[in-house]
């Protein structure tokens, strides 16, 4: 496959030498044991050439993790995860996969075509054997951005690199901020991540700098029986601005795979971070076999006065989603936003939402969450708005709407409100409706098929959130909405 080879080489070339000696090869030779123990953690740390303090940090996290219980309050059901049956260092386990594009499930090919991902990339995305494994980290679509623009970013003073590189090159920054937003033992999955996190992105934007371009990472799980534990740390120093995009996909496997990431954002005085996610992990097949368990802790600390963090997420993938991107509004006048579309189909289960913790005076937050359930899926919005006594003048607006398509799906809304300041104003509204017959009829009599009509109406339903996405993602997200709902009509 010459074309593929081209792409592989291009990616490799862009990624530079580092990739020529990509860690994957190394791992192949020194495969981490299955299961989790201090040796595995030492192994991971050694592979990454980490300083002692980080190893100690990991080991402490592991100790604490052993004492924690897996949370069970979310409205999701899944068989107990055997944490000793996983690989914690991304060493792809080789098995006979499809040899060429022709062997790839046509359903999958069609999906990718719909996503608008060029065919030669499809081999990577489908996990085809034969393409070098580091390229399978199709992730590196965005590493190419790093490499290409690194000089330009550096000129602006922006640091954008893998976290492991940041540990080596900028230890003072990493040490200062790592775990300062999501403490080691914050919750079961975050704690596990702290012990075994392997890769992720690090961004630092210096004071007063407006990051000259959108930064993006494209995460991908490719290996079998491997958990992915990436860790992202973004720091926007005083008066800076950065927009960060995150995309995720995974190959189709019959086994469930674990993804337990941690994302920490720090916004100092007057800084702004815009964080957009299009999450399209493999959701499992129509019967609920396989798919990713997406247990993610994302939190932003609006540490500075008048800082701002905006989360936008389009959640269409994963068998199970457990994710609550949050904002701690510590600085006076800081603001947090959460725009979310969660689409579930088949047997997917999503329990997602946000937390807005108002600590400072005149803090503002806005939550717009749209849930769409189809097939046999279940979608839950779970959110907390908490106003502390010092948050005078705090303001929150929350809107959660659920749309049900079909008779066998479920939608839930669980908003928590805790108000402890008499000068705060909080509003929450939620609705649950079905796709209106009248609207469908109207659109169809204008000549659209039923499926197109549903897509059109659904796109209208989620418009408010899509508008918040950066351009490239908005297009992708719109298509994803169409893909996810395919086959849910009638």
């Amino acid at each position, binding site marked *: 496959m010459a074309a593929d080879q081209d792409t592989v080489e291009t990616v490799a070339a862009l990624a530079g030498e580092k990739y020529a000696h990509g860690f994957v090869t190394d791992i192949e030779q020194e495969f981490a044991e299955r299961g989790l123990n201090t040796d595995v953690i030492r192994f991971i740390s050694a592979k990454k050439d980490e300083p002692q303090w980080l190893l100690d940090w990991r080991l402490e996290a592991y100790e604490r993790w052993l004492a924690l219980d897996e949370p069970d309050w979310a409205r999701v059901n899944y068989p107990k995860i055997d944490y000793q049956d996983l690989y914690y260092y991304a060493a792809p386990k080789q098995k006979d996969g499809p040899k060429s594009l022709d062997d790839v499930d046509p359903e999958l090919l069609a999906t990718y075509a719909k996503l608008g991902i060029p065919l030669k990339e499809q081999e990577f995305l489908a996990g085809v054997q034969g393409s070098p494994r580091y390229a399978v980290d199709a992730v590196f679509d965005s590493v190419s951005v790093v490499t290409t623009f690194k000089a330009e970013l550096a000129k602006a003073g922006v640091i954008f690199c893998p976290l492991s590189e940041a540990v080596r090159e900028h230890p003072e920054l990493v040490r200062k901020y790592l775990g300062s937003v999501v403490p080691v033992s914050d919750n079961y999955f975050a704690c596990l991540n702290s012990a075994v996190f392997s890769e992720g992105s690090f961004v630092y934007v210096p004071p007063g700098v407006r990051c000259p371009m959108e930064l993006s990472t494209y995460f991908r799980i490719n290996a079998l029986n491997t958990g992915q534990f990436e860790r992202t740390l973004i720091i926007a120093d005083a008066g800076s601005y950065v927009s960060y995009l995150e995309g995720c996909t995974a190959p189709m496997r019959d086994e469930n795979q674990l993804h337990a990431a941690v994302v920490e954002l720090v916004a100092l005085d007057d800084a702004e971070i815009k964080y957009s996610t299009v999450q399209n992990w493999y959701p499992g097949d129509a019967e609920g076999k396989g798919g990713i368990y997406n247990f993610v802790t994302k939190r932003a600390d609006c540490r500075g006065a008048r800082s701002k963090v905006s989360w936008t997420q389009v959640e269409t993938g994963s068998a199970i989603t457990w994710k609550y991107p949050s904002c701690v509004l510590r600085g006076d006048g800081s603001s947090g936003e959460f725009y979310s579309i969660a689409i579930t189909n088949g047997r997917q289960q999503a329990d997602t939402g946000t937390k807005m913790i108002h600590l400072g005076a005149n803090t503002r937050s806005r939550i717009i969450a749209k849930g769409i359930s189809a097939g046999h899926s279940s979608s839950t919005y779970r959110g907390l708005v908490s106003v502390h006594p010092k948050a005078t003048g705090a303001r929150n607006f929350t809107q959660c709407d659920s749309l049900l398509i079909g008779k066998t799906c*479920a939608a839930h*809304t669980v908003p928590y*409100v805790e108000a*402890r300041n*008499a000068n705060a104003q909080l509003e929450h509204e939620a609705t*649950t*409706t079905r796709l209106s017959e009248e609207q469908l009829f109207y659109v169809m009599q204008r000549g659209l098929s039923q499926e197109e009509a549903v897509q059109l109406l659904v796109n209208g339903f989620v418009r408010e959130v899509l508008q918040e996405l950066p351009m490239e993602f908005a297009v992708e997200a719109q298509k994803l909405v169409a893909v996810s709902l395919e086959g849910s009509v009638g």
Partner: protein
Amino acid sequence: MTGLRDALLARDETRLPGRRDEDWRWTDLRGTLRPLPVVSDAVQPLADRTDLDGVRTRRFAAPESAGVLALSLSVPAGETLVLLDVIEAGQGAYARDLTLHITLGEGATLHRLVLAADSADAVSVSLTHVTLAPGSTLQQTVLATGAKRQRIATTVAHPGAGAHAQLDGAYLLAGARHSDQTTILDHQGPGGTSAQLIRGVAADQSRGVFQGRITVAEGADGTDARLKHNALLLSDRAEIDAKPELEIYADDVACAHGNTVGALDADALFYAMSRGIPEAEARLMLVEAFIGEIVERIGAPALQDAARAFLADGLEALRR
């Protein structure tokens, strides 16, 4: 749901529900009863009579130390009952648990007003289970002034089929009082409606809690369920906690909930004061109007009067 009852009967303090129990996260009973009071042998007295104007009144006297009572009532098919349940205040730190069952026959109507007037040091939980039949109507209003810990919970098994449930409530809290109104409304069949409006005011160091869960079962199409909770916080040391939940398993439904927490409208206050009304008075007026809507929604005129009198006392407590 009846953790207090279990703890009292088993004389086991560890059975008291606390903030780690999801349903009790804001109504922590742990540590509130030390030592755990002994349930008196005699069932606490209950006065039950029907007035000339057709209002059946049940008075639940407070126990001396601890009291547990379970009671059933049914409204026969096609009949209408106007029921006033008064949960009376007692002396000091008593503990009380009421478990009430109410069954409505086909086409029956129940107007129920609950006046919960516990003492400031009491721990008081009441749980009413209502079972509706097709075509029946429940119109309930709960008015509460709180206690050390107070919960008034209502669960409704709603068959759909033209039945309607209205679950309204209001709380007026001063001092260090706590009050929790919890509703669980289970729409089990198609064609049912429900409406809930809860208004609350928390002053001083008080704490108001509202939890409302609406479940629409698979197949309960055509359900129309609405829920609204509005609260006013009058002090920075007061707290309002709310959790309105929707749990929907049917697609042809219209369900909505709204929840607001805020301060008194500054413009309205300014207007009233500009007309020469002192600030304290103006505040009370606005609170009265805010809560008044709950009274206006009460269908039975005789109950409206009782509700007004109760709220007047509650407002008086806010003035102090």
